[in-house]
């Protein structure tokens, strides 16, 4: 099973062409496929976002029917969360965790292959629902009943697709945990692991804990629809709010699944370009673990307006506010890492710094949202939309881009075009703020989310936001071009591509050979 037993002749016998990718069990091949798949989904989900922003460019309906608009908001979220961000992190985990812990491959290579190949099929099903009679799902990615039960033919296909994606995530997580716990090079103790490995270990546990909960919730939707159960129907003794509790018991840990690996990436990149060790390594580990624990006891802050008993609202408000403490520790540690370093500002560092700044803004609005009485105003408005796009786009997505720039030399053996990278960064960071910052204003001024049309007092900021949206969207094409260029050729990358880079992945040549660490490295 392990690469250590494979001889050279065996390598030559490996299939080539399409079949190579279909049957590969190599963590680097699978990592690359995950990352490219994620990029494709990022562009698909982005195109849907542009339909949304085109319709919202002006008041009145100009582009799409309201029902199609709802399909776009629903699918945009599902595609971005399950198709773009999660597979990107799994791709990074596949590529980097074995290299970082000195393992020859992932612990369960065949399952690794399967967990990737489920994704294209899951998304083929999910995206095909847009062409079914009655259209795709239009009840929001949260799929609240009873509205979700009004979905047409697409309904069972959506549920099935999400089951498939969930199975893929669970298998990916099992693989990550098995690799980290069993395959570290001798001497690589847990508290010596790079922070990216730590954050992924915790993320993987979160996923195994909550993906089955989502599966349960949507299966109950399915039986309510087709098999006469009434879990979520008051007429049969059920409760629509029960669904929301179950969903958000999955949903809140899910948002940390989308951000913890990003914390790990930023904690890797900042020390490299500050040429100074990460400040407070162990407090970073404990903060990550605390955030993960708290994520299980804050779910109902997504439901402050459903009419919970006041004691419940108070509990969830206090617990949510507490998350600010470990998150604050992380931000302070990053700033302390920069402090008195010797920084340079290559593209990965720029994205990492933008992450610290903009993710923190998302954290601030998150703290505001935690204040339950104020949330009675904020809830379900564009303020919330602005909040979670700051943490997911300028948070998760920026971290993924930073990681891509940081490790591209290791993956391709070539340095990317720094000039294009800087263009990509500056255009992204300017437009993303033009896109999302005004949405804070819109929400506070009273614009609800998920509406295709709005009254005229919201026109100005919507127009600015749409301009930012198109600018941000097209700026990503620079990245696609840069990536293509970098894969094809360019300046040869050294084994240690960055002056200040630490870690086992920089000990192997660039590009990383197909098989690495056949014999475990020596850990100092």
């Amino acid at each position: 099973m392990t690469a250590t037993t494979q001889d050279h002749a065996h390598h030559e016998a490996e299939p080539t062409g399409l079949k190579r990718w279909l049957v590969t069990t190599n963590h680097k091949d699978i990592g690359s496929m995950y990352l490219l798949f994620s990029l494709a989904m990022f562009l698909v989900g982005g195109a849907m976002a542009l339909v949304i922003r085109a319709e919202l460019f002006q008041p009145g309906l100009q582009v799409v029917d309201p029902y199609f608009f709802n399909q776009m908001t629903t699918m945009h979220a599902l595609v971005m969360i399950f198709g773009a961000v999660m597979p990107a992190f799994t791709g990074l985990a596949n590529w980097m965790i074995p290299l970082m812990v000195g393992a020859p491959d992932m612990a369960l290579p065949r399952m690794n292959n399967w967990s990737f190949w489920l994704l294209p099929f899951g998304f083929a099903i999910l995206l095909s629902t847009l062409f079914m009679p009655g259209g795709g799902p239009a009840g929001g990615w949260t799929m609240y009943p009873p509205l979700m039960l009004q979905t047409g033919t697409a309904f069972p296909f959506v549920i099935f697709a999400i089951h498939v994606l969930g199975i893929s995530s669970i298998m990916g997580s099992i693989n990550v945990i098995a690799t980290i716990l069993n395959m570290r090079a001798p001497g690589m103790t847990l508290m010596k692991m790079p922070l990216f490995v730590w954050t992924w270990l915790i993320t993987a546990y979160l996923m195994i804990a909550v993906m089955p909960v989502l599966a349960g919730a949507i299966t109950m939707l399915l039986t309510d629809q087709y098999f006469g159960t009434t879990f979520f129907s008051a007429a049969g003794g059920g409760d629509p709010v029960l669904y929301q509790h179950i969903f958000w018991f999955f949903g809140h840990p899910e948002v940390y699944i989308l951000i913890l690996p990003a914390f790990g990436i930023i904690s890797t990149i900042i020390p490299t370009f500050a040429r100074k060790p990460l400040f407070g390594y162990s407090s970073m580990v404990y903060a990550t673990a605390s955030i993960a624990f708290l994520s299980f006891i804050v779910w109902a802050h997504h439901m402050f307006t459903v009419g919970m008993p006041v004691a419940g609202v108070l509990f969830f408000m206090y617990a949510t506010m507490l998350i600010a403490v470990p998150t604050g520790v992380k931000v302070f540690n990053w700033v302390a890492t920069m402090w008195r370093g010797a920084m340079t500002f290559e593209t990965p560092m720029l994205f990492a710094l933008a992450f610290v700044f903009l993710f923190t803004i998302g954290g601030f609005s998150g703290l505001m949202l935690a204040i339950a009485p104020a949330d009675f105003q904020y809830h379900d408005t564009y303020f919330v939309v602005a909040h979670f796009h700051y943490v997911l786009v300028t948070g998760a997505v920026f971290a993924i881009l930073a990681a891509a720039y940081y490790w591209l030399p290791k993956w391709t053996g070539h340095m990317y075009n720094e000039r294009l990278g800087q263009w990509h960064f500056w255009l992204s960071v300017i437009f993303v703020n033009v896109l999302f910052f005004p949405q804070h204003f819109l929400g506070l001024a009273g614009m609800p989310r998920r509406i295709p049309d709005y009254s005229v007092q919201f026109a100005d900021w919507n127009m600015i936001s749409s301009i930012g949206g198109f600018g941000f969207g097209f700026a990503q094409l620079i990245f696609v071009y840069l990536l293509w260029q970098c894969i094809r050729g360019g300046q040869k990358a050294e084994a240690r591509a960055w002056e200040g880079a630490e870690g086992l992945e920089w000990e192997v040549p660039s590009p990383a050979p197909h098989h690495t660490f056949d014999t475990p490295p020596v850990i100092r």
Partner: protein
Amino acid sequence: MRKMTARRGLGLAGLIVGLMSVVSPAAADLGLINMTRGVTESSRQIYDLHMTIFLITVVIGVLVFGAMFYSIYRHRKSRGVKPAKFHHSTAVEIVWTVIPLGILVAMAVPATQTLIELDDTSDAEMTVKVTGYQWFWGYEYMDEDVQFLSRLDVDSDRARQLGSGVQPASVDNYLQNVDKRLVVPVDTKIRFQITAADVIHSWWVPDLGWKKDAIPGFVNEAWTRIDEPGIYRGRCAELCGRDHGFMPIVVEAVEKDEFEEWLAGQRGGDAAAATASSNEQSEVSDQLASR
């Protein structure tokens, strides 16, 4: 090179502002950037909470980002600095764990007070039952035998059709006008009982300070006491299907005697309309039951 890119970015921002001033409708408002103070005691408390927590985050932001940008400016390799070697300090870690905790406790106290007050619907002087439908609202004045439905007004409805050619700015209160307003008295504690007939909706008038979900099969309670007569506009805040964006709420607060007069008029004149609406209600629940 980076400087040049930044300058181009500025140019782009200028272009955007220029474009905006040409095409944006006259009624739009760039100054509309904050939460309303509203017209009730609770809405003002909520506004104050909002501004307090906002200012706290601004102060923390200035400190943290100040340190960060100072470091970016000073501690860069191009200035020939040598990196320091320090990598942890338990004392510092404790300080920046404990201080935020203190701030949070200070914030939690007023938030708790406001929350408990908002939750207390007792001693209400009148009760209005609000029912969410796909896609309009139903109102019933409890024990007064007055009920009606409230839908998007005809002008907005015409203008909002895909490719209608009607400029939204030319419609009076586009998408925030209804055919029949919810009329309520000022200086009266009004209890709302909020429910829905089909899917989940959410009843939200920003000037009252809160929204509450309307959930089929359950009744949620909330209350308000409006200080000033006026017309307050809101909308459905929970995705409820195709026309979620087209079910506005208009509350008209009037003096008490004016309200009594209005209510009396409704009892006599609109009995037929009331029956029609209750028929419709039972129709909807029949549909729901058959599903």
